[in-house]
């Protein structure tokens, strides 16, 4: 019997392993869909291990890039001008650093003013990585559960909405950008107060769904958050309508929108730590378990 069992194992061991591995991946997908705690624990653990390296790599890239832009291109100069050019390079480097400091200072002042004006319950975070896949749109930030960041929290900039926290680890978190297909935020058209749901369609574009055909909306209209759902403060700029589409004879019209923030150039962001109004209903898209659990 043992010999037969061994023979069967030898014969079917590899196919069984392949099937088991793929089944395991499917079970994992199912557990993720149900938001089970065990999977999240492993996610957080692995993220915690990998993210410091990611942070270090980003730092290296930024340093090398800065040096490359301001210095290395100036190295190969004619010999007779070397001293002068060196001096120029040093001055340029100094100038660059000053400019960079000035820009950072201005940016920080804007962020601080924004924070004081809108909500004191915000923390700043640095973007340390982008989505490894081209199908999904997310970034990794250097703040996590240890800093009070939780799933579903809003991530913004003074210029507009960035997205919401999707996964968390003790010191890092993944932010789902508004341009991702899985993102959905309640919005209103600023001029006409028409309500709609903002969904991502990738490539730095979004669309407004469930915008009633009877509601007025035009190209160039600014769209802001409605505040429904409690995660995003009301009135934050989301983007500008670029195209209106009244498909067929349905109840709704659709609008394509360009986000007000360039989501490919993110460096620092704000995470809103406090829900804006907990009593308000949960945000949109209450369909087949797709929505991110808040």
């Amino acid at each position, binding site marked *: 019997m043992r010999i037969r069992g061994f023979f069967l194992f030898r014969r079917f061991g590899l196919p069984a392993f*392949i099937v088991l591995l793929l089944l395991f991946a499917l079970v994992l997908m199912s557990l993720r869909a149900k938001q089970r705690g065990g999977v999240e624990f492993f996610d957080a653990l692995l993220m915690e291990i990998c993210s410091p390296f990611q942070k270090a790599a980003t730092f290296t890239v930024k340093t090398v890039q800065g040096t490359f832009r301001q210095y290395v291109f100036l190295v190969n100069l004619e010999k007779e001008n070397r001293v002068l050019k060196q001096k120029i390079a040093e001055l340029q480097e100094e100038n660059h650093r000053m400019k960079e400091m000035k820009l950072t200072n201005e940016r920080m002042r804007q962020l601080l003013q924004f924070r004081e004006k809108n909500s004191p319950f915000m923390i700043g975070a640095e973007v340390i990585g982008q*989505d490894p896949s081209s199908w999904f749109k997310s970034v990794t930030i250097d703040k996590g559960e240890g800093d009070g960041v939780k799933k579903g929290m809003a991530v913004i900039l003074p210029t507009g909405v960035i997205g919401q926290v999707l996964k968390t680890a003790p010191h890092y978190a993944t932010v789902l950008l508004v341009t991702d297909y899985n993102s959905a935020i309640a919005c209103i058209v600023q001029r006409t107060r028409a309500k709609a749901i903002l969904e991502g369609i990738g490539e730095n574009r979004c669309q407004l769904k469930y915008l009633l055909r009877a509601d007025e909306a035009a190209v160039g209209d600014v769209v802001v958050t409605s505040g429904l759902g409690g995660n995003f403060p009301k009135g934050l700029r989301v983007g500008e309508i670029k195209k209106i589409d009244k498909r067929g004879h349905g109840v709704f019209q659709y609008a394509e929108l360009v986000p007000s923030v360039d989501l490919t150039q993110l460096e620092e962001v704000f995470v809103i730590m406090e829900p804006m109004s907990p009593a308000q209903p949960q945000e949109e898209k209450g369909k087949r378990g797709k929505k991110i659990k808040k």
Partner: protein
Amino acid sequence: MKRVVLPLLLGVFLLILQTTWLRFFPIHRVRPDILLIFTLYLGLSFPPVSGGILAFLMGYLMDLFSGNALGFYALSRPLVFFAAQFFRERFYLEGFYSKFLFAFIYAVLEGLLIFLLMNALHPSPLGGLYPLLLTSLLPQSFFTALVTPPLFFLFQIGSSFLFRQPEKGIMEKV
């Protein structure tokens, strides 16, 4: 042990490369997927069990750092690995063009699989995704395939330092 841990560390390094350095690639939508290339290399040169587990872990790590909440890559990467294993004897993989074609086909097929899964599991139709098949999937697959031959060459050099039979990824050097 070495044949699992070292490739895993290399995979983590490639993932970090993909999420940080490659963001400075001039055209965002055509960033090559170097983790896919690594998975293909595993499929061509590693045994099914350790390679399968490595491919799964690569997919899991991809999911972890992406906005993909369900974990499609933990499924697609082992599938890519086993498909590469299955077809490795049927493909002539010596020249540049054959490696290019091999990687291009797998990149397109994996993209289509992700696309199908996204459509199947999304509550509403994702009409906006269809244009991406042409504007994003094909160019990205092309660039991934373009980078594949030199990366395969580098992986082979690395393997020859680590293994006695680098083409099989086995027999650790003492």
